[in-house]
């Protein structure tokens, strides 16, 4: 395959080609999934990460997974006029005017109609370039050219502490992005150097789920903000936090889109959580996630009506929340069939191997017993546990 190169170079290139040949293995990567989710939902993304930790490689993976091309533009080597268009002077500018020609990458994106535009090193560009670029990110306009619907824009910046020129995003701008932190895992890098890189299966929106996902996301965000009106708009007090994600009506709208997209694509909880925290900030995001987890619990009244046809949540703290809700529902309307249905629900928790989670609820249920109701058989399952723990006499 010597195509006229000197043999020394050909040998070196062969070595390079051998180094480029790597294997891949499937692995979960929540940060890449969160990025894919935000890009799928068509929200402007700002990736924060130190230089040289594989942001561009992640973008290439994402573009391959979405099946579109990747256009990388290094912001710091451009001038504002590159993004506002360059004047092309014809023979008679007085009659034809001076058209502003867009740069070639914008033309390429407009011609294919879809693609991933990656604006790298946003934080080391001069402020005027940043201002021009933000117009590209937020209004999707390059000079007189409007980027088509299918183009997704992602920007990357170095954190203020790590950047030499100390770039600070102003609060109104920060509030228009989904902020995602890009970190590297030393073990992944070490494994990659050995020749195996992880590949993540990225979720895609399932059209069949769309109507349900939208209704569910609307109900969840609206219910949460009804319960916590203080979180609708809350600007942080200090400069560093104002330049990141914080809750405002605009970012809640973004969170709603992310949530609906996540439901429709069946995203993992971890990726959805990272994307939501990137839209409305860590505090509000985590509160929303806790609220969503409680929403996912089965409806206690429906379960009491048919105690054999429900699945216990899989994590102990959610089981606890669910069983507390069941006991509260029995307490609100203590009839014998509902009371006995409550014992049937607790029996499921015992079968699942978590009698201690149900023990508290069992004690509360037992206290509700009417004197002429028979003692339920399920109570024996808890006696040993309560005795052992010292809550009942006769234990060890």
């Amino acid at each position, binding site marked *: 395959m010597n195509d006229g190169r000197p043999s020394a170079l050909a040998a070196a290139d062969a070595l390079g080609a051998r180094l480029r040949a790597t294997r891949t293995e499937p692995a979960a990567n929540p940060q890449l999934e969160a990025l894919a989710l935000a890009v799928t939902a068509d929200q402007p993304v700002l990736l924060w990460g130190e230089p040289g930790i594989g942001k561009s490689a992640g973008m290439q993976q994402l573009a391959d997974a979405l099946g579109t091309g990747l256009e990388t533009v290094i912001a710091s080597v451009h001038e504002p006029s590159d993004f506002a268009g360059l004047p092309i002077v014809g023979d008679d500018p007085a009659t034809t005017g001076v058209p502003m020609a867009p740069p070639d990458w914008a033309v390429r994106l407009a011609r294919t109609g879809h693609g991933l535009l990656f604006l790298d090193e946003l934080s080391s560009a001069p402020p005027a370039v940043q201002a021009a670029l933000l117009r590209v990110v937020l209004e999707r306009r390059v000079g007189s050219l409007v980027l088509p619907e299918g183009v997704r824009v992602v920007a990357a910046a170095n954190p203020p502490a790590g950047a030499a020129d100390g770039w600070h995003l102003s609060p109104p701008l920060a509030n228009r992005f989904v902020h995602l932190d890009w970190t590297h895992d030393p073990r992944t890098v070490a494994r990659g150097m050995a020749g195996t890189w992880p590949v993540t299966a990225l979720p895609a929106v399932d059209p069949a789920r769309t109507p349900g996902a939208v209704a569910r996301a609307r109900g969840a965000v609206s219910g949460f903000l009804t319960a916590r009106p203080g979180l609708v708009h809350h600007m942080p007090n200090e400069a560093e936090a104002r330049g990141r994600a914080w809750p405002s009506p605009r970012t809640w709208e973004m969170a709603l889109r992310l949530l609906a997209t996540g439901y429709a694509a069946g995203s993992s909880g971890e990726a959805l959580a990272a994307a939501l925290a990137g839209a409305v900030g860590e505090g509000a995001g985590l509160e929303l996630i806790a609220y969503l987890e409680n929403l996912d619990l089965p409806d206690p009244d429906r379960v009491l009506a048919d105690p054999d046809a429900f699945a216990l949540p899989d994590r102990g703290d959610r089981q606890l929340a669910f069983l507390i809700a069941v006991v509260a529902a029995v307490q609100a309307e203590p009839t014998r069939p509902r009371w006995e249905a409550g014992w049937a629900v607790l029996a499921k928790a015992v079968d699942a191997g978590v009698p201690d989670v149900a023990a508290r609820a069992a004690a509360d249920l037992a206290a509700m017993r009417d004197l002429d109701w028979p003692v339920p058989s399920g109570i024996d399952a808890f006696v040993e546990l309560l005795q052992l723990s010292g809550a009942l006499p006769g234990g*060890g």
Partner: protein
Amino acid sequence: MDGPAGPPRPAAGPGPEPTRLDRAKLLAARYRAAEARPYLASALYALAVVPSRAVPTMGVDRHWRAYVSPRFVDDTPVAELAGVWVHEVAHLLRDHHGRAARLSAADQRDHVRVNIAQDCEINDDLLADGLPLPEGRMEPRLFGLPAGGLFEAYLPGIPPTPRHHPDCGSGAHGVPVPWELGADGPGGVGRMEAGALRRQTAQAMRAHRRSRGHLPAGWQRWADELLEPAVDWRRALSGAVREAAAWAGGAVDYTYRRPSRRTPALGGRVVLPSLRRPLPRVAVVIDTSGSMGEAELAAALAEVTGVLREVGVRGNRVAVLACDADVHTVTRVTRAEQVVLEGGGGTDMAVGIRAALGLPDRPDIVVVLTDGYTPWPPEPVSCRVVAALVGETPPDPPGWVETVRVPPGA
């Protein structure tokens, strides 16, 4: 977690190896812990139990799985097992593996010492709270250390060859150990879910304190710090100065003095302007009277000048003024050592700010270092003002001044 359980036993210890885990006893202990400390119930029940012969006593990993030795459960009374449950969940709630990852590399490798320091951080609170723990537990007093500290502070005081080797697993010290299932194992709690659990637990603690009034001091500190994290004043001050500099320096203008390098590309028929970026001028006004400490002043001034140097504002663009209202003198200094702190009362920062604005090269930003006991200009001045307030509970400046508090002893 040999911390509370003494040295690791040899495999052929006294008594036969139990064939299976006594789940009833283990869960009874968890129930007891959750009843005694209701605010920890969610976190305790979120742990998934994994029986393991390899683990010496009990350990956790970062995915909230609890690895339990059947023999340890058989040998330990329920009351002490309940204490061990709380101990293990405390490792995860306090994000010990996350904090261990921020230690220096040498400290991270020495995970035995890290684990001991972490056990000290947890156990003094548990014992103060009246929770029984098994024999051989780690406490700060064993190493002559004060109670109530964080493990990062205990670490230097832990001797290099400890008598016991606790191992609470990677959920504590962050180093994977052989018996753990790893990231791909079944179940487990993700990073964000763990964050939500921590928040939930902190809120439950606050609710518990409001209704019943009693909460161990260590947990109270933890919950307050988690729900309202105290931002390091250095980051707050450098963030404020940085933002002000970006705002003032953002006035980028086009100029025709140097034509753009793109002009030849257009055939020379259109002359495009190029960009110039003026750098902001900054005045630092120092209050020399009042209760400012030398150390705090030097730290705050170093922070400000450091940030300004970073954003490229240096040399004659920074003016440092020492302001003493008694004699209404404003002197221009070049080094922090030249600032003479007078002490005594009678400050008027309005004088200092006016003097700064009256300099021949007018500043775009004024940074004020003061103890806060001072009148301020009655209405907003025509530049950005950032105030670093040094000392105990300084009074608030007006709203248009961006304020950062520097605690004493900083």
